[in-house]
């Protein structure tokens, strides 16, 4: 049995072994992502969101359940994945260009050296870092470093991009800038994206599908399809429809945190297009 989806998690259950006994983090978590779609995962702190990224990238294997990527069971890391974290983890002894090209030293892409440089320079230009190729990471601001980190995660043309709160440590304006950059990047070269975030506005602005994870051990408590058509701008976050979506997500987070019951409707009487996710 295979999976028709780009990414599929099927009843994934996982526990960490600690000194105080096993700590269950995921309980029959199921998520499906279409090719070139964008899924944002939100949830209370410590609900296993980062565990999810490690499972999809193959850095870890689940205790139970299956993780599928491009129709194959994930059992180990694979070069068709790109990752970026909250900490940009640039290598201080390399220039920005050398940092961006790091994955090309590991993954064989069949590109010649000059094609590799062109590829990296093209990405840097796209995110607005033209002219900073020869700088060291320490000479760049936090937002610029995160941009470079994004370039590095995309330089080897991955099918899947996994982002673990990459914008979490940035100031609000820089963050919104980078949201726009994400849209620009996807427009030019499509990829499937899994984003972990704490920011509900970010999830609605960027994603086609928002998954709310329950408290630990987590399952997919709620799934919302974000159908804002056309090119998104920040103004789209202030339409009544977006505000309603944000209210629903906020309510779902409160449910996940155990602070609200699932029967309380977020906005009285408003039926939503959102569907309850699998396993809820």
């Amino acid at each position, binding site marked *: 049995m295979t999976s028709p989806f780009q990414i599929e998690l099927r009843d994934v259950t996982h526990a960490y072994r600690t000194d105080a006994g096993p700590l269950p983090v995921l309980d029959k978590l199921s998520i499906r992502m279409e090719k070139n779609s964008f899924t944002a995962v939100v949830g209370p702190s410590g609900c296993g969101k980062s565990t999810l990224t490690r499972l999809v990238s193959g*850095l870890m294997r689940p205790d139970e359940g299956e993780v599928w990527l491009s129709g194959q069971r994930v059992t180990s890391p694979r070069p068709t*994945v790109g990752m970026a974290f909250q900490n940009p983890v640039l290598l201080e*002894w390399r220039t920005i260009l050398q940092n961006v090209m790091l994955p090309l030293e*590991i993954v064989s892409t069949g590109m010649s050296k000059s094609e590799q440089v062109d590829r990296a320079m093209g990405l840097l230009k796209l995110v607005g870092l033209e002219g900073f190729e020869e700088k*060291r990471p*320490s000479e760049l601001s936090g937002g610029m470093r995160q941009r470079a980190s994004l370039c590095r995660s995309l330089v*080897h043309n991955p099918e899947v991009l996994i982002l673990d709160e990459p914008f979490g440590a940035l100031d609000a304006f820089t963050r919104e800038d980078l949201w726009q950059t994400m849209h620009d990047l996807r427009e030019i070269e499509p990829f499937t994206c899994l984003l972990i975030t704490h920011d509900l506005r970010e999830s609605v602005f960027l994603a086609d599908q928002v998954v709310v994870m329950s408290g630990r051990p987590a399952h997919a408590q709620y799934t919302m399809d974000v159908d804002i058509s056309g090119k998104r701008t920040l103004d789209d976050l202030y339409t009544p429809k977006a505000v309603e979506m944000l209210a629903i997500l906020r309510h779902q987070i409160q449910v996940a945190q155990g602070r609200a019951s699932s029967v309380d409707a977020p906005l009285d009487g408003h039926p939503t297009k959102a569907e309850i996710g699998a396993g809820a």
Partner: protein
Amino acid sequence: MNSATLRKIAAPVITIVAVLAIWEFLVWFYQLPNFRMASPSDLIPAFVRYWDLFLIKSWETLWRTVVGLGLAVVFGTLLGMVMGFSRIAREGLYPLLVGFNAIPKATVVPIVALMFVGQHDFNTILIAFMISFFPIAVSVSIGLSTLEPEYRDILRSLGASNFTIFWKIALPKTLPEFFGALKVAVTLAFIGTNLMEIVSPHGRGLGDLFDSGRISADYPLMFAVLFALAALGIFLFYIVVFLERIFAGWAERAPN
């Protein structure tokens, strides 16, 4: 020559000259005989008289120190890698290492001298090595064990091998700590060499020259040896600084 370079050279030279002048003045002011305190001007005749001996003995001290330090670098780095990557090794080895490091090496000298009777060069190198590998091992192990997991993950998620991760990330990231430790180790290795030369005299190195100064009550010679040791120490230290600039210069922030 621009003003920055001039400052870099002039500042230490002026400081050294000033210290020597104060020293000279104090010895003159208190009218100290040279067996209590030799003055810098007493040392010049000593250097002039024994310059050939100074060259030979300095070389003997220098090469044995460098070989001992070289061994310490190789062994310390390997040990640091083992302790940095394996928690069991770290927990198991730490008390042993700390205990070994706490033993004053002056007490080890006679033991080593008895164990390998007559192997003077080997013994000297051994002591220089034993006294200087500890800081290297500790700093390399700390550098490796504190590597943030994300650094590992960016390469591991692409399917990179452990060796690639070590070579491309862990090793270069540890270099600043390594050079910090090497600066400590280089002076320690010197102390080790001289311990052997002085505590177990065998006619080699600056320690031997010091000893002959002591035996023949040539106090200015003893002081002159201390100067030569200091000069060699400065020389080796700045070689390490030079290497650090080349290999870990990125860790130095540009002055604002």
